[in-house]
């Protein structure tokens, strides 16, 4: 029986027993419809049950299985072995994040940044229930919808060279989320969020490399969100010159 096999290198790190990360090679039976995530599940089920990786939905909705595939940030469930076979595949945890264990990274900094941008609608004035719902036209919705598709997988942070150099930078996903709420017609919190945008660590930490938008699995285009926010921040700067707080 001649089953097709593919070699997969996985970066292992178990903090309680490994001094530093090392690469372990596995041979996995190859089929064209097999995703990277399924290959990892095969390894865990049949070859080495100690391997750790995050996953949940298997369909690019949950954003759990982000990892570096041959050095490129990808979702394990959305990348397929057929795009690499017969060459070997190398899997590493997402770049720019500390490793927790094997392919699992510590995402605390990213989550903190998502919380910091006030990612919720701040109404201009509280409306009574009897006044009815907030109405929105399709045009008003189109202004922010794209930026609301983020699944918080963190691929854009692994791609961002500025976040790699200085993790004080708010980063692509959090700024895209900020833009999503600032551009929402139901929101009145722009003034509060612009203070975050206007900082060096806000949009001005970005040099528009654009790789975040290339790797984004949901076509959110965070780079566009950030450049649009730079325009807003520049307007805010001009207004601030004549009307200091």
């Amino acid at each position, binding site marked *: 029986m001649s089953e097709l096999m593919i070699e997969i290198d996985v970066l292992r790190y178990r903090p309680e027993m490994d001094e530093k990360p090392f690469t372990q090679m596995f041979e996995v039976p190859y089929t064209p419809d097999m995703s990277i995530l399924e290959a990892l599940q095969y390894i865990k089920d049949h070859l080495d049950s100690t391997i750790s990786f995050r996953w949940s939905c298997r369909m690019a909705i949950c954003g759990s299985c982000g990892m570096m595939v041959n050095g490129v940030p990808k979702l394990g469930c959305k990348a397929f072995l057929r795009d690499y076979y017969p060459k070997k595949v190398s899997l590493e945890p997402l770049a720019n994040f500390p490793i927790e264990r094997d392919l699992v990274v510590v995402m605390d900094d990213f989550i903190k940044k998502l919380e910091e941008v006030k990612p919720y609608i701040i109404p201009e004035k509280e409306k009574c229930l009897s006044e009815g719902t907030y109405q929105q036209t399709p045009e008003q919705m189109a202004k922010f919808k794209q930026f609301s598709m983020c699944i918080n997988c963190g691929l854009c942070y692994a791609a961002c060279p500025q976040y790699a150099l200085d993790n004080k930078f708010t980063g692509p996903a959090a700024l895209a989320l900020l833009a999503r709420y600032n551009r929402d017609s139901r929101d009145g919190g722009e003034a509060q969020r612009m*203070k975050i945008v206007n900082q060096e660590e806000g949009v001005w930490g970005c040099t528009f490399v654009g790789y975040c938008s290339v790797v984004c699995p949901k076509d959110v285009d965070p780079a566009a969100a950030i450049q649009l926010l730079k325009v807003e921040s520049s307007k805010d700067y001009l207004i601030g010159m004549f009307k200091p707080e």
Partner: protein
Amino acid sequence: MSETTEKTYKRSHEPVFWGLFGAGGMLTAFLTPVMILITGILIPLGIINSQNFSYEKIHGFATTWYGAVIVLVLVALPLWHTLHRIFHALHDIGINRGRDWQQVICYGFAFAASIFVFTLLLQMF
């Protein structure tokens, strides 16, 4: 969450330099190829008569008020663009020592050259 509400935000002055960078980049992208085409290809090939670009003609153009403005903008803005890029590239390649001085030297050069061109044009009138 209390620490985030206490946070003080410091406004960046980057919009000034980003504005000059953007304007300079636009000019560089659109007009530099045209200028290279004219002065580097079309005039040497004789397609455009080089007498149109004689000293007297160019001097005459640079000493009108609109000509002087065009020359100043064409020299100064791409310079601000270039030095902004260099300043940020220094950070990107890991030269982080003396960022303040890097900024003074980069933008200082662009500023000095802009003033130089400005006075040069002014004294031609």
